Each structure stands twice: as C-alpha cells, then as structure tokens.
C-alpha cells in the first residue's frame, strides 16, 4: 500500500528550516509555535497512518512510500523510501508523541534561555532525523537518520557551549558514538556484500538471509556483532555507555527526549528490526543478552550512590536500556520494544519532573540540597511518583507489564537462562531502591536548600505541568496494550508486532507459543509475584534508610566505604578508559612528535631545505634581475625551439 509517508518527517524539516534560516529574526512565540505545530502535525499524520495500517489485514500491514532513487551505482541501488510497518509505526508514534509533549514542556523550561531559537531548531532537526531513522526502508537511509540524531545529540548536549563541561560532554558523546557508527557501517558493508542489498525488504527477508548466510556462521555473526557495536554506541551499553551520564550537561528536556525516550532506543529498534539476522546468529544473541543484563546491573548499581538527580536518572536509563537489550538477546524482541515504549513514557516523565524540580531549585541538581518538595510542588511530586512506581514495576502500571515480560522471557526463552533472569531481578530491586531513594531525598524529609532558594520555590507553570500529567497518564495506562496471557490479557502488543518478527520461529508457530505459555503459567505467576515482593522489600529499605533512619544510611556508607567509593566513582570506568586508551595515545603521540616528527620528518625536510638552499646559491647569479639578460635568454630559447622545429619538424 502506498501512502504519502513523507508527510510525517516533512513538518519537522520545515520547522527546522524556518527556525534555522530565520534564526534571530522571529519572536519566541513564533518560534515555539512553529516548532510545536510541526511536531504536532507529524504526530497527527503518524496517527492517521497508524490507523490506516490497523485497517489492513494482519499479514499485509505495510505502508510504503518510495520517494526517489538516491544512489544508483551499478549493483548498489539505494532509494529514498519510507516504510511503515507495525514496528516503525510504534516508533513513529512514540517519537513524535513524546517529542510533541517535550516540545510543549520546553516552552516553559527554556523560556528565559538566550538560545531559545537555536534550541527549537535543533530539536526539530532531531525529530526529523529520528523519524527518518525509524521510517527508513533501508539500512543506508536509516544510517542517515542515525547520524542525524547523533549530530543533534552532540549539538544539544553542548547546547550551553560556553560551559567547558558541556562542550566536552558533547565531544565525548560524539566520539564514542563514532566508534559505534564505525561498527554499524562495517556491519552494513557485510550485509550488502553478502545479500547485495541494503533494503529491509530484501536483506531482511528470511528466505534471502537463509540462502546467503549459514545459521551461526562466521559472516552473520560478524555482521550482527558489528551492528550490535553500533547499537551499544547509540544506546549506551557496555562498553560504550560512558557518554550518556555526561550527556546530562544538556538542557533537561533534551535529556528527557533524546537521552531517555527516543534516540538511545535507536539501537534497540535497529536490533529488533534486524531480528531475522540476529536470530541466525546465536552467539551474537548471547552476547547481546549478556551485555544487556550486565549493563543493567552495572549501571543500576552505580545509580545507587549518585547524588545528582539527573545522573541517577541517567544511569537508570542505561540500566533500563540494558533490560531492552536483554530482551532482544533472549529473542523477545517485542518485549524489548514494549519496554522501549513504556520506558519512553515514564523515563521522559521522570526527566521532565526532575527538570521541573531543577527549574524550581534554580539550577540545583544535587539531591543532598533538596528535600520536602512534596508540599511545594504537588503536581510534580504526584506525577513523579507515578513514574517511579511505573519504573519500579508496581503492578497495574505500565512498567510492570513490560519489565515482567522481559524477566519472564529471559527465564523461559530458549535463549535465556536462569542467571540472566536472576541478575535482571536483582536489577529490578536496585531500581526500586535508587528510585525511591531519589523520591525520598527530593520530595520528603526536611528542606535542606538555602533560604534564598527556599523562598524561590514554586510549582512549575502549566505549560510544564500539563505535559507531566499527560505523560503520567500514559505511564499508567501504557502497559495495557500488552497484558500477558497469564493475567487474562492476550498480549496484543506482541501480536501486533508479530509480522515484523519474521526471524522468531516460535511466533511462526503461534499456537505452539500459546500452548507453552499456558503450560508455564504457574511458573510465570510465581516469578511475577516474587519480583513484586522483591521490589516491595527494596522500596521499604529505601524508606528505612532515607526517611525513618537517616543516620543508618550514613553508617552503612561508613561501613562499606570502599564499596561506596567504587560505586560513587562509577567503577572508575572513565578513569580506566582514560588510562587504557587515552593516556597511551597521548604518550604514543608524544613519542611520535618528539622522536619521529622532530627528528626524522623535520630532519628530512630541513635536510632537503639545506640542499636546495645550497643549490640555489649556486644558481643565483643567473637571476641577475637585469631585464635585458632575461630577454636575451628568452630569445636564445626561442632560437633553440625554432632550431628544433627546423631540424626535426
């Protein structure tokens, strides 16, 4: 089915061009109107096409829109073409919807910023790129969007570029992402080399894939691993997660939009999109699962000890992304996407809420100087609480369904194992602990801020709280599209995505999957209850340490001061990278500079210069500067040439 899909990314592009080209010439109202309207229109068109898609029969849910041929070079043929299938439809809605809400929120948050117009310009460019990424019907166009969002991320992290830490963070994000992109590119090359196409339709056709790759073969493993490297870069997984916490230097709505809800999920989306290939490389799947779950617990543990409110959320994001990768790694791609969606809602809400808090605290981000904000900012508090409950997986809220599905799949899937499940479970507990630690430190207890800030405290304006409320509602109900069978639902989300997950064999035999789910019903229920109990325990612990008995927390910190130091110092990964990668480079460069450059290269050049200088001194008398000498020599030359012509001509 053909539909004008280009309408979806068109409007942000127009907004970007309008705001970008007329930068500094528009009023704030006009800028925000253009920016918000463009994204809003995108969302509406996304919705329209989504319903168009729903109106199609299950098996034929694909809307295409071939625009023009981009690169026709021999066999290499790339179209600019868009593809809307259930997977990209979900992404489009999440991206444009959350973006729209955050755009609205930004009107209030960025109101007094000097770079207002620039901010919305970047934001629109980001939305455009992200929509390109998710709508692309081939890897190359996807890569264009992929790079585009990387660029916007760089621009927005370094938005306050006068601050050195901000511009450094921007550079770090860009460079780390570049490492990942390099993997992605190589993966793309292998895919093209083997299948002869970068189109999803061809390259991801199971028949084609099976005809050119051997299941578990070296080529497919390499390709998928390289692409996974790209995903770790973009989605902040071990070992390339280091940029995301630093990315918190950007404006908070940016953190919410890019570094929590949308861009960082690009890796997950890409792997889910490529599920056909990943399912053919079991080794890669194992790597994905292990890296995912390791990242989850690793980042979760770091989050336990951080004091910066955004930093906690940042590590929480890394941790949750780990969950998504775990889901992908155990072949539960739809679960990963499901979590991606719910996470987008509640993590965006958390960030926006923290933004609201920071806004009220006049830029203060350290939780140790907060407290008691519950009364001061009730809307922020309640929405934040809802999001916290959602992320910790309290039954009935969106996070519960998605997280539980991942845990269950990691336990039950052929690719999963009890260890992965166990680590995931512990991570869930940690999540509960640090999230409630955050809530308690921020909103409960005594007011630890200075008096000036205290007088200044206020609830955020409507333009900020309304988006919070909307996201809160979404955080609550977002999960109900995917209620598992065990709880009486029929997991419509998974079914909806099924046509895309062509590589997952058990979905091909859907009946069998249903049967096995029913068979394991009791186990699933037990696990679910277990995780809820664990979460409750950790919430209580947080309550114990940060409300009831604050001194206990300090004592605990004292007793495990070494451990605390390690966690507080984020396992010193940045320092490790610095020592292992950056320092050797610096030392090596210095060596090359001092020895190779100065002695050998410069010596060679200087030697040449001396030789030429000596030769010139010998030749200099020829250059007398006397005009007649020159003309005479010139004439002799003419005579010689004429002579040659005469003799040989």
């Amino acid at each position: 089915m053909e539909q004008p899909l280009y309408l979806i990314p068109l409007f942000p592009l127009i907004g970007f061009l309008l705001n970008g080209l007329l930068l500094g010439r528009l009023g704030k109202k006009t800028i925000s109107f253009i920016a918000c309207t463009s994204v809003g229109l995108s969302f509406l068109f996304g919705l329209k096409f989504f319903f168009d898609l729903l109106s199609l029969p299950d098996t034929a849910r694909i809307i295409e829109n071939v625009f023009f041929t981009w690169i026709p070079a021999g066999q290499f043929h790339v179209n600019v073409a868009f593809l809307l299938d259930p997977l990209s439809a979900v992404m489009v809605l999440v991206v444009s919807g959350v973006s729209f809400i955050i755009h609205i929120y930004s009107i209030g948050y960025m109101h007094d910023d000097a770079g207002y117009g620039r901010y919305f310009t970047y934001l629109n460019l980001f939305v455009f790129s992200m929509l390109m990424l998710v709508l692309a019907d081939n890897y190359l166009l996807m890569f264009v969007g992929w790079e585009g969002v990387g660029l916007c991320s760089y621009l927005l992290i370094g938005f306050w570029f006068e601050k050195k830490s901000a511009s450094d963070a921007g550079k770090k994000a860009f460079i780390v992402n570049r490492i990942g992109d390099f993997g992605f590119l190589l993966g793309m090359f292998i895919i093209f080399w083997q299948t002869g196409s970068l189109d999803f339709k061809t390259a991801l056709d199971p028949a084609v894939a099976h005809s050119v790759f051997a299941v578990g073969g070296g080529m497919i493993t390499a390709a998928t691993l390289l692409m996974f490297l790209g995903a770790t870069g973009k989605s902040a997984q071990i070992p390339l997660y280091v940029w995301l916490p630093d990315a918190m230097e950007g404006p908070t709505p940016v953190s919410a939009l890019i570094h929590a809800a949308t861009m960082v999920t690009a890796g997950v989306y890409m792997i889910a999109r490529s599920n056909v290939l990943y399912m053919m490389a079991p080794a890669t799947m194992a790597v994905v699962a292990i890296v995912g779950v390791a990242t989850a617990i690793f980042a979760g543990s770091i989050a336990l000890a951080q004091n910066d409110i955004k930093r906690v959320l940042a590590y929480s994001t890394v941790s949750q992304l780990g969950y998504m990768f775990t889901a992908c790694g155990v072949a539960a791609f739809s679960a990963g996407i499901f979590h991606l969606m719910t996470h987008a809602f509640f993590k965006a809400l958390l960030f926006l809420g923290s933004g609201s808090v920071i806004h009220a605290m006049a830029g203060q981000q350290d939780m140790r100087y907060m407290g008691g904000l519950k009364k001061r900012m009730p809307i922020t508090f309640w929405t934040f609480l809802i999001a916290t409950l959602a992320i910790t997986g309290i039954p009935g809220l969106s996070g519960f369904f998605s997280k539980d599905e991942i845990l269950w799949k990691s336990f039950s899937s052929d690719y999963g194992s009890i260890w992965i499940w166990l680590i995931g479970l512990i991570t869930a507990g940690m999540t509960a602990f640090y999230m409630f630690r955050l809530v308690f430190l921020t909103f409960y207890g005594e007011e630890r801020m200075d008096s000036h800030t205290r007088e200044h405290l206020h609830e955020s304006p409507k333009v900020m709280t309304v988006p919070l409320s909307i996201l809160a509602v979404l955080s609550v109900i977002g999960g109900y599209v995917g209620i598992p069978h065990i709880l009486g639902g029929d997991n419509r989300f998974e079914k909806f995505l099924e046509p895309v997950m062509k590589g997952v064999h058990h979905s091909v035999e859907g009946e069998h999957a249903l049967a096995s789910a029913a068979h394991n019903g009791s186990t699933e229920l037990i696990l679910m209850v277990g995780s809820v109990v664990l979460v409750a325990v950790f919430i209580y612990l947080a309550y114990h340490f940060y409300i009831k008995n604050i001194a206990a927390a300090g004592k605990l910190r004292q007793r495990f001061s070494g451990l605390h130091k390690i966690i507080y110092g984020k396992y010193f990964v940045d320092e490790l990278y610095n020592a292992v990668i950056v320092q050797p480079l610096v030392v090596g460069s210095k060596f090359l500079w001092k020895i190779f450059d100065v002695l050998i290269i410069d010596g060679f050049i200087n030697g040449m210069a001396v030789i030429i200088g000596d030769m010139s001194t010998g030749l200099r008398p020829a250059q007398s500067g006397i005009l007649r000498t020159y003309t005479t020599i010139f004439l002799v030359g003419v005579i010689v040439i004429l002579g040659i012509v005469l003799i040989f001509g």
Partner: protein
Amino acid sequence: MLDLIIFYFAAVIAVGAAVMMIMQRNPVASVLYLVVSLVAQAILYVQLNALFVGALLIIIYTGAILVLFLFVIMLLNLRGEHFGGKQSRMGRASKIAITVILFAEMVAIFKQVAIPERIGTQAAAVAEDFGSVEMVASHLFKEYLYPFELTSILLLVAIVGAVVLAKRDKTEKMEDA
C-alpha cells in the same frame, strides 16, 4: 616594375628607420624613426591590398600610440638620460649574432612552411574589393564578433590599469605639496 621599385623603396626605409630607432640615445628621435618605419610599412600594406588596415596602422600607431610615447617622454622630460658606462663589445656582438641567427631561422621557417612554389611568385589576383573596409568589417562583425568584443574588454582593462598605475596616491600628493 614600378611596384617593385616602390617596394624596395619602402622596405629600405622601413628597415633602415627601424635600425636607426634602436640605435638612438634620444627617445624622441626613436619615436620619429619608428613613425617613419611605420609609414613605410603602411605603404607596403597598400601594396598588399590592405588599404583599410594600412590606414588604421597610421591612425592608430602614429596618430595615437606613438603620440602617447612622445607625450610620456615630454611629461617625464627625458632629455637624453645618460645610461652610464658602455656595454662590452663582446656582449653587443653576441646579441647582434643572436638576432641574426633568429632572422636566418625565421627565413628558413617561412621557406619550409609557406608552399615553396607560391612563395616565390606574386599571389593570384584577388577580388577588386579585397581588403576594403566593407569586406574586413563584414568579417569582423560576423565571424569574429566575439574576439572583437573581447578586444573592447581588453582595452577597458588596459585603460583602468593604466589609470591606476599612473595615478599618484593621494598621500603621495600631499607629501609633494
């Protein structure tokens, strides 16, 4: 016969005046000899049925370009500037030798290039109006219109260049004053 006499007459004047031109100390005398040489050449042009170009040669060269030379000489009030010590006789002799060789080579080239059986004879009769204003003009404005227009640009550039070069700076003028 008369033609040949006129030719030799004009040729001798042209070459002789040219030689005199380069031998002069005094640039004014040089200019005058060049004028004489050019007028003699104009006669040769007429013999080659190039009436229009011959008239142009006089109008443009003697009427404008060489007057400009004279004008400059007067403006600078160059009155036989003394050019210092004499040149070495060897140097001058070798330079004359160079030009003689050049001449010999050119003659040889002409003999090689021009078709030998035609070079020794008078060219075939040409149309009555060969070289007339009308004929040259129709070539100039039809076939060679673009080169012709480009010449105008060249002249414009030359004018601007000459003005810029010869104009005194304002600061320079103030120093003078």
